[in-house]
């Protein structure tokens, strides 16, 4: 099932809700992110303050996790499925993300960062 997750709130005190992917607004930017052992591509995701984006996550091999604890995002990315995460960056800065499903020797390196620029 495709899911869309909304990130709301002034300081990423996220309020999450789910809704069908059909609700993705056509004008919103979509950033494709792939997960595979032991990396995310891209590993650095640059966003602009206040500009909504949709992260479209898929996996190339096995189940992975995608957690941005500072943004209250904690999702899984499963084979054959697409996970959508909507983010409205409300604060500039760098926010670390990593895989939360242990996937082997190198799992600890499977990480990246979201950089929100003013």
């Amino acid at each position, binding site marked *: 099932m495709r899911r869309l997750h909304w990130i709301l709130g002034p300081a990423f005190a996220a309020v999450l809700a789910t809704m069908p992917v059909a609700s993705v607004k056509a004008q919103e930017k979509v950033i494709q992110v792939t997960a595979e052992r032991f990396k995310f591509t891209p590993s650095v995701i640059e966003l602009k303050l206040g500009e909504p984006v949709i992260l479209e996550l898929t996996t190339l091999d096995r189940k992975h996790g995608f*957690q941005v*604890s500072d943004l209250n995002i904690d999702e*899984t990315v499963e084979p054959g499925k697409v996970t959508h995460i909507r983010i409205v960056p409300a604060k500039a800065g760098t926010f670390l993300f990593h895989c939360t499903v*242990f996937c*082997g*020797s190198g*799992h600890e390196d499977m*990480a990246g960062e979201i950089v929100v620029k003013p």
Partner: protein
Amino acid sequence: MNELKGRRDFIKLLGFGGVVFASGLAGCANGLRKSGRQEDDFFFVQLSDTHWGFKGPPNPEAANTLRQAVQAVNALPRQPDFIVFTGDLTHTTDDEAERHKRMREFKLIVADLKTPVQRYMPGEHDASLDQGKAFQEHFGATHYSFDHKGVHFAVIDNVSDPQAAIGDAQIDWLLSDLKPLPPDAPIVVFTHRPLFDLAPQWDWATKDGSKAIDLLQHWKNVTVFYGHIHQEHHFKTGAIAHHAAQSLIFPLPAPLSQPKRAPVPWDPAHPRRGLGFREISVDESRVVFTLKEDSLEGTPAVQPAAAIGTY
């Protein structure tokens, strides 16, 4: 106490209630123990994150580090009542046969410990790829409890689920295990990952750890010993003290002290810096713990093993 003088040892009294901290070199163990109380006190040793099978620049001596730890523990002036390994006994591998081989080799090496009573629990490297199947085959249950000289010990598995959850079934077991105990019962919890959110950005947390903490808060004297973060660390959630141990493979940086949780680079001048184990003394009240951090630095090197034996 005199045994500590002249070395780089130190003792700290911190705001941890009945806990005394000490650090030092392996071999000067039991320095804090007062003579005449030994029949009432007991102590155990915590070893963690041995990662048997690891190969890489963070520890070029990895094939010997576990043996050095075994030698160092065996050299203690008095042997502990038991030894606990708080997870990541082996380094993970996708190869199932290799996983079993590493576990067999680990068991052979620690069989040289003088202390016969050893307690094990898995880390994610041991258990997350097969949900603990190989671990259980070699070491038994991944969560259990036992009593020792008036202290109740509970082992919590927060790694067999690859998403680092304890799970409701195990929480229910923990509740049923602890329920008969009075509110002031001395309780020690062993686990691999921190139960609290130490640094979720680095995966240093347990997904549903708050459920365990909420449950444990009902008892007044709870102490948690864990591993995973490859360094000594002390923290309190309410009345519960949480103590992380050094590893026996390579140290990791302080939580969120740098962008990535990469291992601290190996220093050939100090090849065993940041590696060590912990002695935990329990006094006659059973609620005051003395923690002594023993470093492998300065311990004698062991000869590289030609082979581990046959199976």
